[in-house]
């Protein structure tokens, strides 16, 4: 007997049946092919090119979207690893029982209308489900959730998501924190190994998936969206362990007002949910973000920028004013913009002609005319990076100027320059590639940003997002190095 149990079950240290099932039954597949194809699970799996077997379950159908249908899951002749329950909430309990009899390994209850609606009936139905699954061997995701996106051979809650797996693991209580996040992230080129939206979590919850993320050696970054947490101590311990090994970006939404009544000590009267979550961030090193957009920028930084060893930033770019703004922003997030050493300034003077608009202080304005990118640009980055006071480079370029002045080949020049810089400089580098507000420029710049990301170059649309993300990285590496 294993002593590590949860809900009376063996600790879940193998999520294979959750993320890589070889067969999926959809209980409640629709007979209306067009609707099923567009919004049903048979449609989602087919359009996602799910390679395993698909068994639609519907007593009124013989075949749905080319797959033979069965009246009940018990009628399927072969074993079924994974079942998705999409029927009306009053029929869910019975469907779960049938799955248990069929020895399904993972049950995903897609249907909502349980404790989350707050009605007596919803709460009672959920309680019934908990009782039904109490002593079974299967594991349950949900109810009231999107379930799983697993591009390396599993199902997907959205057929339009990339089929190519990456190295991010997204764990989310709600659909917004998973589907919308992945949609935003894919636009920037970020790819996921696994994603799950676990809803009311009558069985598997954030802690189980976080443990899986810790153990999965393909995963190097975790995103977590939470509104509340059960088993707080277990969560605290796993999170601390996980963040030590791979960064965890945590979006905690909503604050609890519970536990504020009947306090007898001064300490308890001062303390609140907010302070405790703040403490959790400081102790575990989990990186705090407040919006999905911020989460995406933070993940871009973590996937492309080397770990920071200190807080000294070298700012290099065009536009003296932008440099001053960036300096203030750096200071406000705890980064430093130190004065460059004598040796560094001397070397910079050699490559930067003392002409209009060039300075060799920090921020460094490399006077390269309006083209912005040239051989000297990379040399300049290298010289600044060699200064012992500098731990990280942030360069800012304004491609709207290149387009405005009608330069050719600047996009390739930028990509090549950054690739070269990344190859020869072993300190963290980020590029702020300002998209401007003109729609034509915007589209071009976003496309180049994506290409830069594909080459492993951290590229951001604003000074603000870049500096915030890098500031938080500095905090993170400081906490885990301590």
């Amino acid at each position, binding site marked *: 007997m294993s002593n590590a149990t949860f809900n009376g079950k063996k600790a879940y240290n193998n999520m294979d049946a959750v993320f890589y099932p070889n067969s999926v039954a959809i209980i409640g597949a629709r007979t209306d092919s067009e609707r099923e194809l567009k919004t049903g699970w048979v449609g989602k799996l087919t359009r996602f090119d799910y390679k395993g077997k698909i068994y639609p379950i519907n007593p009124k159908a013989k075949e749905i979207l080319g797959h033979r249908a069965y009246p009940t899951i018990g009628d399927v002749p072969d074993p079924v690893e994974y079942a998705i329950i999409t029927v009306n909430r009053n029929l869910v309990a019975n469907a779960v029982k049938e799955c248990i009899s069929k020895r399904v390994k993972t049950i995903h209850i897609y249907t909502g209308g349980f404790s989350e609606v707050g009605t007596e009936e919803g709460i009672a139905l959920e309680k019934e489900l908990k009782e039904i699954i109490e002593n079974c061997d299967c594991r349950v995701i949900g109810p009231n959730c999107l379930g799983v996106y697993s591009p390396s051979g599993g199902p997907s809650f959205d057929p339009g998501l990339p089929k190519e797996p990456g190295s991010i693991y997204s764990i989310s209580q709600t659909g917004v924190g998973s589907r919308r996040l992945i949609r935003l992230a894919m636009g920037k080129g970020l790819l996921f190994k696994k994603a799950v939206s676990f809803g009311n979590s009558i069985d598997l919850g954030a802690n189980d998936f976080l443990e899986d993320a810790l153990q999965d050696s393909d995963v190097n970054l975790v995103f977590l969206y939470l509104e509340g947490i059960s088993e707080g101590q277990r969560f605290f311990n796993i999170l601390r362990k996980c963040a030590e090994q791979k960064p965890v970006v945590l979006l905690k939404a909503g604050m*609890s007002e519970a536990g504020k009544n009947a306090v007898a000590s001064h300490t308890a009267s*001062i*303390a609140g949910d907010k302070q405790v979550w703040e403490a959790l961030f400081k*102790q575990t090193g989990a990186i705090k973000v407040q919006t999905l957009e911020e989460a995406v920028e933070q993940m871009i930084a973590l996937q492309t920028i080397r770990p920071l060893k200190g807080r000294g930033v070298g700012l290099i770019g065009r536009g003296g004013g932008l440099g001053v703004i960036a300096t203030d922003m750096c200071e406000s997030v705890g980064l430093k913009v130190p004065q460059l050493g004598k040796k560094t300034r001397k070397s910079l003077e050699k490559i930067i002609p003392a002409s209009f608009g060039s300075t060799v202080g920090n921020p460094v304005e490399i006077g390269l005319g309006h083209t912005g990118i040239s051989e000297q640009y990379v040399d300049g980055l290298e010289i600044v990076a060699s200064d012992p006071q500098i731990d990280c480079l942030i360069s800012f370029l304004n491609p709207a100027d290149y387009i405005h002045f009608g330069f050719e080949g600047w996009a390739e020049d930028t990509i090549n320059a950054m690739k070269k810089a990344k190859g020869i400089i072993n300190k963290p580098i980020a590029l702020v590639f300002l998209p401007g507000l003109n729609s034509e420029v915007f589209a071009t710049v976003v496309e180049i940003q994506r290409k830069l990301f594909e080459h492993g170059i951290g590229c951001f649309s604003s000074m603000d997002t870049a500096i915030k993300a890098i500031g938080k990285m500095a905090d993170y590496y400081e906490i885990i190095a301590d």
Partner: protein
Amino acid sequence: MTALNSKEIIQKVLSEGRSLLTEKESKDLIRNAGVNVIDTRLAASKEEAICIGEQLGYPVVAKISSKEVTHKSDAGGVKLGIQSSEELGNAYDEICASVAEKIPKASIEGVTVQQSARPGVEVIVGMFTDAQFGPVLMFGLGGIFVEVIKDVSFRIVPLAQKDSKRMIREIKGYPLLDGYRGQEKVDISILESIILKLSNFVGQYPEIKEFDLNPIFAYCDDAVVVDARVILNVEDIS
């Protein structure tokens, strides 16, 4: 009389149906956690008080000991800076009379007599139980800093060593501990060790629901708990 161990103190309080420990019980419990607490003894009579006063050496502080009195000063139950046996005898009578008058239903166990601590930088270490995460520790500067400015930091139990280091340095008033303008520099490592001992202690005793160690006097070579208030979780009686 031998001192009770932590388990015995907790059981005694719970068996009497109480959640709030007396000052003496609170201090005995915290001392058992390995933390330096000011010597505080209970006198059941005036004579006993004078005897304790002579043993501890003057000046001393006298406070009412009653399970029904939660705000001792308001009830006239505290006398500071007592310099002699004569003063201590008078203080004993005055305290008992004042409490009897202001809170007639209070049963008076006697008066606690404790050493006057030499002045130091006042800090607070507190603990409460969060509904989601369990025990959480708080650190801050004592006195008005905690009451008015709420210059405090929190950490979830169990704390790692770096957590105790960081939570002390995180408060805005940290320079006051670090020898601001030629003042005595507090030994921070002693405060860190107190915090870690308490983290370990509350981890062992889930019956403890909240406490305030306020103030703790911090010095360049020592730190001592001067007042303590511990509250148990009554629902957890099993």
